[in-house]
């Protein structure tokens, strides 16, 4: 058994005497994290706002374009309707009549021998036919 002298024992310090000392460098690192986080949050928020602004602007542009498309579509169908009415056989027949383009009361059928066939004398036959046709009223 080893004797211990009371002189080697130290008094146990009280709880309140202990405290942690934080150096200035450690304090700045901890604050910097928070500052960085705050800045990041602000930037993200600004980016969000800007993106929404851009989205809304594009939405307005799209709406304008859709309106323009509708207008052009309506114009397209108006033009198609106009073309259909211009092509109306009744309208064309009226104009033809006004221009005198009508079937004659007596229809004469001109029969040209050998018409449509190739061979000797075809040019002469065509010349004769042209003369005959030019004589029609």
């Amino acid at each position, binding site marked *: 058994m080893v004797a211990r002298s009371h002189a080697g024992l130290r008094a146990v310090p009280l709880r309140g005497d202990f405290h942690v000392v934080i150096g200035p460098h450690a304090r700045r690192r901890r604050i910097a994290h928070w500052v960085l986080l705050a800045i990041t949050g602000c930037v993200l928020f600004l980016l969000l706002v800007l993106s929404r602004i851009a989205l809304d602007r594009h939405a307005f542009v799209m709406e304008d374009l859709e309106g323009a498309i509708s207008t052009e579509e309506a114009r397209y*169908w108006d033009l198609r309707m106009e073309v259909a009415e211009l*092509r109306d056989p009744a309208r064309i027949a009226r104009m033809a009549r006004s221009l005198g383009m009508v079937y004659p009361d007596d229809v004469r*059928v001109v029969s040209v021998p050998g018409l449509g066939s190739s061979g000797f004398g075809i040019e002469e036959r065509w010349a004769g036919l042209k003369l005959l046709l030019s004589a029609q009223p």
Partner: protein
Amino acid sequence: MYEQPRRGLETRLVAVGILLVVAWGAVGYRLTIVQGAQAEEFADRGRSQWLSSQTLAADRGTIFDADGRELAVTVDAVTVVANPTEMPDRGEVAWRIAPLVGRDPGELYEAFQGDTHFVYVARQIDEAIAEPIRQANLPGIHFLVEPKRVYPLGSLAAHVVGFVQTDENRGLEGIELQYDEALAGTPGELLVERDPNGRVIPLGSYDVVPAEPGSDLVLTIVSEIQYEAEQALADAMERTGAVAGSVLVVDVETGEILAMVNAPGFDPNDRATLVGDALRNRAVTDVFEPGSTQKIVTIAAAIDSGSVTAATSFDIPERIERHDTTFEDSIDMLGPHTVTEIVTNSSNLGTILIGERIGATTLHRYLDAFGAGRATGVDYPGEPSGLLRPPEEWCATTCLAGTSIGYRVSVTPLQMAMVYAAIANGGVWVQPHLVREVIDGDGASRPTVPAERRVVSSETAHILLAMLEAVVDRGTGTLAAVPGHRVGGKTGTTERYDFELQRYSDTDVVASFIGVAPIDNPRVVIAVVLDSPTNYASGGKGAAPVFSRVALATLNQLGVPPNAP
């Protein structure tokens, strides 16, 4: 001494504990129900409160003629509506807007009475008419955009195209009805979030199911031929005094109907004309006894069955009496005549002799083969099958004789046209149709494939065509001749049956002519039917000239060169 208070405390604690367990158990049970079993139901209820569904109307398909000309188109039109509750002075608004929309001010004022929030003022008007109303800036007047069906060519081919219902643009008649499902397309749906006031929440939920546009239809109708046929029929109606008429032009090889005309007609753009008999497509829906035009079937049956040839001679008497009926010819045919001469002169007695030689069974078989008594299957609503009684129901006295010359059988003009088309097509009957192809919303084309069946041999058909040409050359149909072209056909003049008197009329007839052009290389069959003409009341004098005019226009339109020697 301290045990009783302790037990009392414990009892209360246990009771409270039990209560708490029961209460929390009930909450847990309710949570399970709400979040589990009925979760979908509650979610749907929530969605129904803030999600609004709006139907997106599908664009109705366009109907084109054979050359791509629009016959029916859907365009946006303006509908003027009123909310009378927003009007400080309903009378003033009624009086100011009435002349702008062509309505009676008093009638409008009456419509504005009461607590209604919605009154139609004018429906589907043009923007040009709506503009002054906009500029008037009247309180309580609002504008909607509605689809409107428009027919650019008016009454041209009106019976074929038909028309739609104003409100929902659904087909009511004609091709619009027959192909309504294809034309209508499939509506879409728009889902948006709305607040309790009904306003759309910006950037809220948004889901759209796009509408599928309706299919477009390309008809077989050639507008130029249709127009000329309409003009020819209108002139004939005026000349003959007929109460109604029909003209059909059919491509013999394909069965395509190039023109289908009926008079009286209507304009589908004008609702006031959509009344009564004007709406009937008589070419398809009306039946009549074909009379002499059906004699060609009797002759075809006799030749194809080998009973007779074109040169077979029959000794025609002055009259034929069967039971209580006496049959006669309209011209003197007494003596021997060939089958060709019988057809050329449309001899009733000669045809009866031929019909009696082949018998009821054979005649019925060929009538059925040519399509009598059964619908052609044309793509048009309301086609009847006509009437052809089975031979066992034919009376032993006059039925065979009457049927031989075109009585006791009911057919439509289209059925008769297809009889001649079969003869012109080498003996092959082809199903008639009005739609050439259906074009889906994505551009895919579905052409019509008609059914076919052989009716008579090609040799028989060739012989019949020669007979038909003789009818026009020197028979009853000389007025059907077409300058520069060889044509053939058959006249028909049938006593009209009066259903009220239950007997044949002494005065009214059905005059018809059905012909083939050109006869040597047939392209088209043209059928003309005039109901109750008072002047030129016969097939040869009333209907045949119509055939001549329509045939000339048709052959020119198709680019068929003259072939007359």
